[in-house]
């Protein structure tokens, strides 16, 4: 759906900082999250998890646990269905291990009991006999031909012959003659990088309340980024029909991609079916870290050649991502995104997806891109240092723009990178003075964004108010932005619209709240639904006035005669039309169903100042500024919020967050104490500059903003620290021991 011709119109609602409709519920504790629901006769579910990184399950003896008073059901993998599709079979085998446990924390069995204490006791009575197998957790180790094999026979046809079976797929992108390009360079830098696995770190652990009868009818309440996706997965994994399983999304306490799949919902349903009672299953924080989706860890080689005046002549990246114990599809996005910000004659990216004995990777904000762009932007920065070039000017000189053949294949149309770089250049932050032990870092970032399947129903109520029904959980204020777009289109006050997020049986299928898609795609469908309702109302007014439909137009929330030939009629407002709906054909509604495309790619630029303590290796973030193209900022507060939140997640990734495994393959820091997400006192204000370069694929020009902001911080910080410390940091996180060691080796 293209940009409206009159997209430069004066918006009445769009761009305002209105109050979010779910605000009061969320500041008073009334809002209901995953773990806040109860049901009469509810049982408590708990999951038994593997203490081994890799082991064959020889036997599971549940008899003693079953005999314990108060235990109502125990389930293992065999209690789940057999989906044909590997995608669903993998989720099943991640929810409850099949023949082998594949990582520390892998679920083995689950119990439902009358209370927490009984469930806990029952877990101890389940006897699992394991045959411990060799394990591997490092991506480079896992690729070696003699590495322990996590799962056999999972590689697809792209996996290179002769490599370990842990390498499940291989990708290559790019164009041009690399050798010729490098030959033209005055300076070539080639470096290797590593990034640790990080967790999305949502504050709300996974939680659900499941009720499933022996007749296959079920009700499921859970915190998820997509209730329809949960329904699809649970239907497949539990062997029930989609229509019979109603999934209601609770308020969601953060997701960031990590709640786009299922870890416990099929297990709770299976327990409920077996016990005949509702079962509530809530993960502990330790379980969240051990068994839900972290992002990939990566190992990357980047080689870039540059002329002495700063033009990149050739660029290559080799990316190796481990996505845990199942095949993942992430490296291809890193490989496509790596050089997206550059206009390159010769570029090649190679990527390998690898299995290890770690939890199954889940999406995390721009999945695959941050680690690739970290490596690329680090080498670009080092080239600028070596050649004495300004890093911002150099990026401008090489920036992708309209007409650039992108590194991932297509030719770019309208993109906002140059404008974003220019905004950074013009900002006082870029030229502010720096002190001793301080450094400034810069990085570009990129994400694709997408639209996806979306349904919206819009009902004109008899009193002239409007109800919007949509199916995407509100993670960061989307109820407000959707109501705003409905109000804008209908020409009525924002307060007259109420948007609700409904269950799977009350609206058609919606893709997950991910891919930065909701404001874009649900907004687009809302506008379309509103236009359908307007069309319907205009038609009714035409009948009332006895003129042609074409002679009626919608202006400022009312139908009015279009042009002098339509006759003289006082405008009829939405409320007036609604009041006579009964007499003019019955209830008025508009709806729209679409698989939205045209989301438009997104670029951002981050500037960061850091100070390092030369005696301890500690890094302090002094100043941080985010520049990002939002297309059109529907609700600027929540656009800024996305930019700030993503930045801080990236800051955590750069400095402290990491999955730490022992030699035994067990996770050593499965808690917020030692998995160190940034706390308030770690951070400066996060300044934001929103650019608005309208997206040609949306009537108002909206562009997704949720994901891009996590991409640049890794390199922005690494570049700032490397400049402050006088030594190039190539491994994340740049924890103090690592930095101190690097500084002492620098001499």
């Amino acid at each position, binding site marked *: 759906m293209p940009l409206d011709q009159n997209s430069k119109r004066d918006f009445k609602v769009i761009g305002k900082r209105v109050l979010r409709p779910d605000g009061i519920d969320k500041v008073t504790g009334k809002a209901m999250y995953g773990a806040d629901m109860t049901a009469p006769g509810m049982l408590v579910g708990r999951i038994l998890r593997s203490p081994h990184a890799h082991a064959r399950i020889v036997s599971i003896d549940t008899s003693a646990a079953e005999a314990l008073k108060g235990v109502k059901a125990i389930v293992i993998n065999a209690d789940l269905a057999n989906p044909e599709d590997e995608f669903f079979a993998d989720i099943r085998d991640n929810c409850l291990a099949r023949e082998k446990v594949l990582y520390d924390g892998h679920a083995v069995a689950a119990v439902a009991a009358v209370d927490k204490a009984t469930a806990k006791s029952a877990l101890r009575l389940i006897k699992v006999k394991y045959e411990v197998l060799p394990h591997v957790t490092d991506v480079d180790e896992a690729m070696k031909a003699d590495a322990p094999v996590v799962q056999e026979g999972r590689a697809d046809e*792209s996996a290179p012959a002769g490599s370990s079976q842990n390498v499940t797929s291989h*990708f290559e992108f790019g164009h041009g003659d690399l050798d010729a390009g490098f030959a033209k360079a005055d300076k070539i830098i080639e470096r290797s990088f590593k990034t640790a696995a990080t967790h999305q770190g949502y504050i709300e652990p996974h939680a659900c309340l499941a009720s499933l009868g022996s007749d296959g009818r079920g009700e499921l309440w859970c915190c998820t980024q997509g209730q329809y996706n949960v329904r699809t997965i649970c239907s497949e994994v539990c062997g029930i029909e989609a229509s019979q399983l109603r999934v209601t999304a609770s308020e969601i306490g953060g997701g960031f991609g990590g709640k786009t799949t299922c870890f416990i919902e099929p297990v709770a349903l299976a327990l409920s079916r077996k016990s005949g009672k509702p079962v509530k299953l809530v993960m502990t924080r330790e379980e969240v870290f051990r068994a839900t989706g972290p992002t990939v860890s990566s190992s990357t080689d980047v080689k870039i050649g540059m002329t002495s005046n700063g033009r990149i002549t050739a660029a290559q990246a080799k990316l190796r991502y481990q996505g845990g114990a199942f095949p993942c599809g992430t490296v291809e996005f890193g490989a496509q995104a790596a050089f997206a910000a550059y206009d390159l004659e010769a570029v090649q990216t190679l990527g390998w997806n690898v299995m290890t004995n770690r939890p199954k990777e889940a*999406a995390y904000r721009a*999945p695959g891109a941050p680690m690739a762009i970290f490596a690329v932007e680090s080498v670009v920065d080092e080239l600028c240092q070596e050649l004495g070039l300004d890093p911002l000017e150099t990026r401008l000189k090489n920036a992708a723009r309209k007409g650039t053949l992108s590194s991932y*294949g297509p030719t770019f*149309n309208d993109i906002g990178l140059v404008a974003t770089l220019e905004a950074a250049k013009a900002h006082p932050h870029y030229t502010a003075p720096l002190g001793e032990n301080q450094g400034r870092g810069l990085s570009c970032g990129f994400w694709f964004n997408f*639209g996806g399947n979306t349904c919206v129903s819009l009902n004109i109520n008899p009193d002239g108010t409007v109800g919007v029904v949509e199916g995407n959980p509100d993670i960061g204020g989307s109820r407000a932005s959707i109501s705003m777009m409905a109000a804008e289109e209908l020409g009525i006050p924002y307060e007259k619209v109420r948007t609700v997020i409904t269950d799977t049986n009350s609206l058609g299928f919606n893709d997950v709240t991910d891919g930065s898609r909701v404001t874009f795609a649900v907004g687009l469908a809302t506008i379309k639904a509103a236009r359908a309702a307007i069309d319907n109302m205009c038609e009714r007014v035409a009948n009332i006035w006895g003129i042609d439909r074409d002679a009626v137009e919608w202006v400022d929330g009312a139908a009015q005669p279009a042009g002098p030939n339509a006759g003289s009629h006082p405008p009829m407002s939405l409320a007036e039309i609604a009041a006579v709906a009964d007499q003019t054909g019955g209830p008025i509604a508009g709806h729209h169903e679409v698989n939205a*495309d045209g989301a*438009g790619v997104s670029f951002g630029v981050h500037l960061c100042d850091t100070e390092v303590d030369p005696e301890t290796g500690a890094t302090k973030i002094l100043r941080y500024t985010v520049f990002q193209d939002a297309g059109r900022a529907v609700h600027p507060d929540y656009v800024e919020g996305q930019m700030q939140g993503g930045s801080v997640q990236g800051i955590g990734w750069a400095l402290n967050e990491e999955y730490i495994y022992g030699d035994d393959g067990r996770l050593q820091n499965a808690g917020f104490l030692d998995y160190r997400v940034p706390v308030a006192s770690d951070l400066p204000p996060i300044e934001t500059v929103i650019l608005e370069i309208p997206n040609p694929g949306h009537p108002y020009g909206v562009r997704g903003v949720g994901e891009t902001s996590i991409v640049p911080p890794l390199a922005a910080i690494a570049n700032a620290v490397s400049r402050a410390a006088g030594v190039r940091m190539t491994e994340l996180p740049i924890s103090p021991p690592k930095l101190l060691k690097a500084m002492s080796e620098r001499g």
Partner: protein
Amino acid sequence: MVRVKLWGSLRSLVDGQEFVEVEASNFKQLLDQLEQQHPALKPQIKRGVSFALDGVIYRDAWFTPISDDNEVVLMPYMVGG
């Protein structure tokens, strides 16, 4: 004939060609033709592909019209977080 650009690792499946030409007026026909003319591409197409039409990325959309004037690039199936 629509010229379809393939990403690097697919090229080895079609004798090293960067571009393949198929007779198609929409994305569905394009996929069908690709599968028919280049069966080696079938597994990847089954796993899912997106395509970029003049720079705009489409995830599914069989009936998106395509002509030989368009730049058509096959891409892995798009995901998000």
